[in-house]
């Protein structure tokens, strides 16, 4: 394939910021620095499979899955509403969804800390209603809430864009032939929107499984996730080899799940079956 001239800067960019770091990751994963010098080793990879770290990995995947399912359950109806005839003319609602994304997500997560914390807004409302106070901040629930809140737009927007681009005449034809809304939804809209759903799932699951700042702020360092473990290895402990090994395992898991997603994506292309 002949490369166009304008691809060069991008290729250089990719080489420096994607390829080189990936090789560094591999290098640190499979080497150990001893007094005799650098040698090949599998000890770091082995350490990742110790039960204690495996539990962290499983916990991260579980929380990310919960987050993805919740995002899908909330996101799909929202995308349907946004794309429906009544709202598609007015872009205001879609805009309202995007505007919070203009604010740095760290700031928004900090805001949740003061909402959920003791003597925070929710605590005050509970007090006012004479309900027993609940511990919200520094729990798994808070972490999932923070993830859903931050990643929901990544679920809504791909589905929304697929829905708006959908050929409306197919839906009209179905309605003309006597299909009720449920049937239309089941047989036409959902199958046709699957590519959007799949890219939404990917876009939510990936950042959710690797997040470290949401779990740090809202989980209080109590519930560390795999992202925190990696961060800790690099920032606090300075064990780059072990940090790289965890990152490597995580990358492999993400690549595998992306592969599975792609397979489904292809199967549903054209939206023939449901």
């Amino acid at each position, binding site marked *: 394939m002949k490369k166009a*001239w*304008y*691809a*060069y*800067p991008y*290729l*250089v*960019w990719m080489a*420096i910021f994607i390829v080189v770091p990936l090789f560094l990751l591999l290098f640190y994963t499979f080497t150990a620095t001893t007094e005799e010098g650098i040698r090949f080793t599998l000890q770091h990879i082995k350490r990742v499979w110790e039960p*204690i*770290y495996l*539990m*962290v990995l499983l*916990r991260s995947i579980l929380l990310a899955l919960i987050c993805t399912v919740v995002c899908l359950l909330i996101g799909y109806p929202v995308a349907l509403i946004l794309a429906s005839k009544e709202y598609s003319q007015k872009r205001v609602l879609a805009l309202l969804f995007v505007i919070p994304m203009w604010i740095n997500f760290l700031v928004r997560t900090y805001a949740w800390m003061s909402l959920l*914390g*003791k*003597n925070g807004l929710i605590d005050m409302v509970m007090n006012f209603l004479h309900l027993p106070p609940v*511990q919200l901040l*520094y729990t798994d629930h808070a972490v999932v809430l923070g993830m859903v809140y931050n990643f929901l737009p990544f679920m809504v927007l791909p589905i929304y864009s697929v829905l708006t681009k959908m050929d409306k005449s197919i839906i009209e034809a179905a309605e003309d032939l006597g299909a009720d809304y449920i049937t239309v939804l089941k047989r036409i809209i959902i199958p046709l929107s699957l590519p959007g759903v799949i890219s939404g799932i990917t876009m939510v699951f990936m950042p959710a499984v690797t997040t470290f700042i949401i779990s740090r702020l809202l989980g*209080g*360092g*109590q*519930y*560390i996730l795999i992202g*925190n*473990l990696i961060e*800790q*290895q*690099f*920032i*606090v*402990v*300075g*064990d780059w080899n072990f940090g790289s090994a965890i990152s490597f395992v995580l990358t492999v898991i993400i690549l595998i799940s992306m592969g599975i997603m792609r397979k489904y994506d292809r199967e549903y292309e054209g939206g023939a079956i449901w």
Partner: protein
Amino acid sequence: MKKAFKIFGLFFSIMIVVGILTGCGSVPKAQLKVYNWGDYIDETVIEEFEKKYNIDVIYDTFATNEEMYVKVKGGGADYDVAIPSDYMIERMIKEGMLEKIDFSNVPNYKYIDERFKNLPYDPNNEYSVPYMWGTVGILYNKKMVKEPVDSWKILWDEKYKKQIFMLDSSRDSIGVALKMLGYSLNTRNIDELEQAKEALIRQKPLVLSYVGDEVKDAMISGQAALAVVWSGDAVYTKRENPDLEYVIPKEGSNLWVDAMVILKGTKNKKAAEQFINFMCEPEIAFRNADYIGYSTPHTEAKKMLDPEILNDRTAYPPDEDLKNCEVFEALSDVIKEYDRVWTEVKAAR
């Protein structure tokens, strides 16, 4: 035409590479990069220094010694002055990361209390100038904790489930567990370390959160009953919320000194020394001590402080409170074990 584009493309690629490799070039004013703990200076002092010496100060902060060490060691940062703690200074001296200070350029060093000179971490006092000192102890809310607090064991009391803040710092938290068990916080005994690990994991369900500087606001607003804090933070929080009290547990604790050091590879050693000297000017040292609440090793600054602070057991504890306290050692040979223990504590559920 096409060829011209091609050349342009290549040129652009080279530009990116060159740009990345060289970074930004010209510097109009002398620059000094200072790396300090968060909330650990009266920031108007920095402005004053900039004006007086016509030097731009780039001021960054860290939350733990380990974070600072990893960043400096990794070579990703080119700081001139840093303010780490004793054991970290010892480690950095051993690893050749520090520059010797020319004390003829730091005449204000004479104001530093003799007690804080020639300490084990810098025995001949060549590398560091003490900035603040203090202890680690328990900060508790008198309204929530009715019983007397005098032991680390209270942090393992089921009664205070989800009411405890621990420090998100390996040496400090492991140190608390070691002291609770009656061991030295500089232990080299792996068995004792494992016991400390078990204790910290056992304690996890009781802990509300592992925190850094946030602990101050959280304790002031009454988010928890007990917290492990550094003494200066206790002085500050007690000022904001009179319900809070600080105690050094009877098992003993950590006595620490944070000192200013110059990092190897500094491009502006003179400015770095000017900065350290400036920080030791009585007026400036007083303002810092007064603002952040930590205990100053500066004799003149101490004289200027409010007598109420000087009589405060939190800031200037009597010797009897300090009798079981230890200063951290670098423990270069077993530090990896401490790192492993801390990683496992944080990963455990």
